[in-house]
C-alpha cells in the first residue's frame, strides 16, 4: 500500500510537471491565435485587445497557469477560441472516438501478437518461428504512414470498406444495430493500420521474453521432472515471462490516446488527431494544452496499471526484492 501511495504521489507530480512545461512551451512558441485577426483590417485593435482580456491572455504566464490549474482541478480545462466552446467537452467527444479506435486496435494486436510470440518462442528455430520472424521484420521496417497510405489506396481501389469519417451520411436514420455495423465498417481501415503497425513489436517482445525464460535453469529442472510441454509453457514459463509483457502492455495503454493521432489524420477518423492538429496550427492555446494533458493522464494511468499488474504477478516485486529478474 505504501508502494501504491508512492506511485500515486509520483504520478501527481508528473502531471504537474507536464502541465507546467505545456504552459512554458506555449509561451515560447512564436505567434498567437490573434495574429491572423490582426492582419484583417476589418477588426479593430480594440476588439482584439478586448478578446485577449476575455480569454485571460493579457495576464502574466504565472497567473494564467495558476488560474488554469484551479479550474482544471474542477474539471474545467479552459476555453477554445477557435471553436468558441469549453475545451473539456470538446476534447471528450473526440477522445471517445480515439479510444474506441485505439482500444479495439490494442485488443486485436495483443490477441494476435501474444499467441504468435509464445508459439514462435516455443517452436524456436522451426518453420512457424521463421515465418513469423520474416513477417515481423517486414512490418517493423515499414513506417506506419506507408502502411496507412497503402491500405487507403487499396480501400479506395476495391471499395470494400468505406474511407474517411466514422459514420455514413445517412446514419441517423439507421437502426441501432446497423449503426453499430456502420461504425464498425468505418473503423476497419484505421484499425487495420494500427494493428499492422504495432503487432510486430509486441510479438517480438513476447517472443524474446518467453525465449529467455525457456532457457532458465528452473525450466530445465522442471523439464527434468517430467512436466508436460503444455503445462511447462502455461504454468511455469508464462507467469515469469509475463513481466516484460506487462510493462509493454502498460506502455500501450499509456499511448492509447496519443498513439493514433497520425493515423486518424491520414484516414480521416474524427478523433483527437485532426482536432489537435488544427488546434496547433491555429494556436488554439487551451485546446492544445488540454489535449496534451489528456494524453499525459493516460500515460500516467497506463504506467500505474502496469505497476499494479506487476505487483499482482510477481511475488518478488510485492516483497520489494532488489532484483526481480
Amino acid at each position, binding site marked *: 500500500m505504501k508502494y501504491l501511495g508512492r506511485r500515486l504521489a509520483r504520478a501527481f507530480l508528473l502531471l504537474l510537471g507536464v502541465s507546467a512545461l505545456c504552459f512554458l512551451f506555449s509561451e515560447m512558441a512564436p505567434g498567437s491565435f490573434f495574429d491572423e485577426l490582426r492582419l484583417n483590417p476589418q477588426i479593430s485593435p480594440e476588439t482584439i485587445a478586448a478578446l485577449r482580456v476575455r480569454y485571460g491572455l493579457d495576464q502574466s504566464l504565472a497567473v494564467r497557469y495558476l488560474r488554469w490549474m484551479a479550474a482544471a482541478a474542477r474539471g474545467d480545462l479552459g476555453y477554445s477560441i477557435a471553436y468558441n466552446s469549453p475545451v473539456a467537452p470538446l476534447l471528450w467527444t473526440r477522445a471517445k472516438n480515439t479510444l474506441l479506435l485505439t482500444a479495439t486496435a490494442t485488443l486485436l494486436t495483443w490477441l494476435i501478437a501474444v499467441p504468435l510470440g509464445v508459439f514462435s518462442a516455443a517452436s524456436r528455430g522451426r518453420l512457424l518461428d521463421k515465418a513469423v520472424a520474416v513477417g515481423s521484420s517486414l512490418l517493423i521496417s515499414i513506417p506506419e504512414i506507408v502502411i496507412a497510405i497503402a491500405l487507403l489506396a487499396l480501400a479506395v481501389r476495391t471499395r470494400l470498406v468505406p474511407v474517411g469519417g466514422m459514420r455514413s451520411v445517412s446514419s441517423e436514420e439507421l437502426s441501432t444495430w446497423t449503426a453499430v455495423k456502420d461504425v464498425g465498417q468505418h473503423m476497419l481501415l484505421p484499425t487495420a493500420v494500427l494493428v499492422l503497425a504495432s503487432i510486430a513489436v509486441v510479438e517480438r517482445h513476447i517472443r524474446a521474453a518467453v525465449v529467455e525464460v525457456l532457457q532458465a*535453469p528452473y525450466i*530445465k529442472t522442471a523439464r527434468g521432472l*517430467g*512436466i*508436460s510441454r503444455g503445462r511447462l509453457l502455461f504454468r511455469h514459463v508464462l507467469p*515469469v515471462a509475463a513481466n516484460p509483457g506487462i510493462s509493454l502492455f502498460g506502455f500501450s495503454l499509456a499511448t492509447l490516446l496519443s498513439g493514433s493521432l497520425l493515423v486518424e489524420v491520414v484516414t480521416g477518423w474524427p478523433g483527437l488527431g485532426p482536432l489537435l492538429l488544427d488546434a496547433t496550427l491555429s494556436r488554439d492555446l487551451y485546446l492544445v494544452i488540454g489535449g496534451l494533458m489528456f494524453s499525459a493522464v493516460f500515460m500516467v494511468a497506463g504506467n500505474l496499471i502496469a505497476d499494479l499488474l506487476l505487483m499482482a504477478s510477481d511475488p518478488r516485486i510485492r*516483497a520489494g526484492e532488489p532484483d526481480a529478474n
Partner: protein
Amino acid sequence: MVEELLKIRDLSVAYSSMGSPPLRAVDHISLALNPGEVIGVLGESGSGKSTLALSILRLLAAGGRYESGEVVFRGRNLLALSESELREVRGKEMSMISQDPALSLNPVMRVGAQIAEVLRAHMGLSQRGVNARLEELLRSVGFDPPSQIATAYPHQLSGGQRQRIAITQAIACNPALVIADEPTSKLDAGLQSEILALLTEIRRRHGTTLVVISHDPTIFAGFADRMIVMYAGRIVEEGKTRDIFRAPMHPYTRALVQLSQRYFVGNVASRARFPIISGEPPGLSRHDAGCRFEPRCPDRMPVCAATDPQEVIAEPHRRVSCFKYDS
C-alpha cells in the same frame, strides 16, 4: 549378480556452436549403476561430469548432441525414447538435483506448488492426495510444520531450505535414480553436512540409487560406495571409495586425493603451501595423441605423449587408464 539399474555404453556427447570446432565433453564413456548404491563422480570443472549427468536425462543444452552410445535404464535405451515416453521416466523413475538452488526453483511459484506439479504429473493423485503427499514429503526432509514452507516463494527461503525443496521435488515420486550435480558446492560448510545427511537418509529409506557429482573428493568419503574420476571427458579411474582414497592409482586421482588433505586442519603447519596439480585442464575441442593428463602429470613417461592409454582392469571393481598399470 544384481541386475544393473542403468548401463551407459560407449557414450559420446559433443557441443557444437557456429564457427568453432565441436567440443566433445563426454568421450566414449561406459558405466554401470547397481540399484541402491551411491556413486561419486569426481572431476575438475570442464571434465565433462555435468554433461554426463545431463546426457543421462537427455537434458543437454542447445547445441549438444549424442555422437555414439546408449543409456540403458531398466532395459530401455533412453536415447531412443520419444519425448512423451521420456516424460514418463523423468521425475518419476529418475530425477536430477542441480547445483544452484537459487536458480533451480521457479521464482514466481510457491514452493509447495512446485513440488505438487511433479506429483500431479506422475502420480495420478486427487487434489487431496497431492496435499497429503506434499505434507508427508516436506516433513520427511525436515520441514516441520510443513504448511508454512509450502506457501513460501523461493526468495523467502535460505539457501539450505531451497536446496531441501529442490531435493523434495526430485524425490517426490520415489524415483529409483537421483542425479545430484554439485548439490552442496553453493552452500555453507555446516549446511553441506546437513544436505549430505539428508541424501544418505533418502537412500537408506527408499533404496534410491544416487549419482553425486563434485569437484571435491571429500564429500564422497563416508558417503559414496563407489567413485569414478573424470578427466577431459573420459573416465580415468573407477573404484570403491575406500580404495580410491587409500590407494589412488591414476596420478590425477592421486593428486585430487592429495588436494583433499587441505581439510586436515590442526596437524599441518599454518601457511604451508598446498599440494597442487599445476596447469589447467585441456580444452575439449581437439586432443593430440597421447594421454590427456600427460602435460600435467608428475609421473609421465615417453609413451604417454605418443599413445592414448587403454583402460585396464587393475583389480576387481577397479579400472584405470594409465600406462603405469599397463602390463
